[in-house]
């Protein structure tokens, strides 16, 4: 029994690594003889990838992109958690603000770029602000939900032991809401990547999005594909890193759920 589950796990991990490699190999083989201008051989794309991203344009494009993304993301998460705790703690307040929140979050953020350019200019401030705007909503809504949903028994226990408000916030309410906050933050992370790219395509002089668009406009198609590749890798790596942090922070949550089930 134990042997077979272990074999299954080894098989699973093996396939996880093998399948992507297989896809790349098949793609490489099929495209090797390609003379299409738009779909260059995979190996050429890899070569372009190496030339551009390792590490020539890291300083000029990758770092500015990532810097703006993380700045916007961090602002959003902090603001969303602070606001979410306030709105989640008071039913009345939550209800009053809900229509406004729903209205604002319904705005597709890219449409704010023209307005953002007018108000904040074409620089990094506008991009950071828009990334923060996009990332705010999923974290905010999940935090409100998580805070409002803290088990009354946990709150009452804290009250009966006269736990101070600060300790209640940091050791009862936030940990209890953490699984939902993390879920929102994960959605926000992928939105951050998208908004980073979009904002760089409209008004920018550097960044990965700018590079991809510029490559396309100058018919540097392999470079364009290389840029897309980099974005995919970035998204993947960010997600993996996020899951690692989440796993560590919410170890108790998985254990508690497994214990209950």
């Amino acid at each position, binding site marked *: 029994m134990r042997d077979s589950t272990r074999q299954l796990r080894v098989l699973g991990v093996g396939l996880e690594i093998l399948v992507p490699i297989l896809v790349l190999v098949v793609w490489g083989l099929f495209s090797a003889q390609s003379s299409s201008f738009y779909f260059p051989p995979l190996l050429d794309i890899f070569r372009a990838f190496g030339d551009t991203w390792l590490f020539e344009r890291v300083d000029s494009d990758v770092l500015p992109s990532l810097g703006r993304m993380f700045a916007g993301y961090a602002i959003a998460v902090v603001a969303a958690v602070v606001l979410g705790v306030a709105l989640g703690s008071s039913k009345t307040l939550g209800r009053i603000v809900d229509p406004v929140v729903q209205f604002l979050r319904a705005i597709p953020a890219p449409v704010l770029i023209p307005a953002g350019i007018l108000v904040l200019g074409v620089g990094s401030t506008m991009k950071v602000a828009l990334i923060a705007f996009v990332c705010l909503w999923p974290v905010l809504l999940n935090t409100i939900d998580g805070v409002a949903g803290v088990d009354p028994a946990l709150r009452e*226990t804290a*009250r009966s032991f006269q736990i101070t408000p600060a300790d209640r916030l940091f050791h009862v309410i936030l940990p209890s809401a953490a699984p939902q906050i993390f879920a929102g933050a994960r959605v926000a992370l992928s939105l951050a990547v998208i908004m980073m790219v979009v904002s760089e395509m409209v008004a920018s002089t550097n960044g990965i999005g700018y590079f991809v668009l510029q490559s396309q406009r100058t018919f540097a198609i392999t470079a364009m594909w290389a840029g897309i590749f980099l974005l995919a890798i970035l998204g993947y790596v960010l997600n993996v890193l996020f899951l690692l942090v989440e796993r560590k922070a919410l170890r108790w949550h998985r254990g508690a759920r497994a214990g209950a089930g």
Partner: protein
Amino acid sequence: MLRVEHLKKVYGQGTKKAFEAVSDLTFTIDERELVCIVGPSGAGKTTLLKMIAGLLPQTSGAVHLDGEKVVGPPEKMALVFQDYSRSLYPWMTVEQNVAFPLKRKKLGKSEMATLIRDTLQSVGLSGHGQKYPWQLSGGMQQRVAIARALAYQPEILLMDEPFASVDAQTRADLEDLVLDLRDRYGITVVFVTHDIDESVYLSDRVIVLTPSPTRVQEIVDIPLPRPRDQVETKELPDFAHLRAYVWRSIKRPEPAEVPA
């Protein structure tokens, strides 16, 4: 001493759905006494306990603890809830759970460690301090909740159907643990239960409540010898009589109209 005077609780007062959960309760509980509160289900037992604990404001009447009116959770009081799985913090280890309410007591580091170690030992959880609650069985989790309450060093321990969701054998063990801890720590215990055997086995006195809107049906003295023993006490003829007496008291139809 705990004094409950003309305590009354109406939910949603002034609205159409106003519901009188507790009508008029008066009783006192002496220091170091172990009193069980029993009553038919829906008798407002938990409502009563929450008012005593200062977690729920009463509509009228008052609760006094050592002469002081209870308006919020008193420092001399600790609470053990029925649902241990929801009252222990799953992101804290056993030790952290026990230590959490002690932060404001400003104990020294070694003093704190000793207190935690001693209380865990007294509930039979030595060596489990580093585990998380969800890694323990139900009975052990309830022991953690009891340890947390004891480490808080209360004068009075309120327990709300604490053993309702553990199996019979564990329940017997935990009952004996409560008796043992009461003797060792010299604390007053107010124990809400719907189990008549449990109430007779544990108590010095049993307070029988009427169905909602709740009044005191009767207060029954339990003069069974101590120390009590799960087998010997329960085979005493007196135990059987008291048990039957409390049973009938609960089942008795609404007492004659209360004289005006």
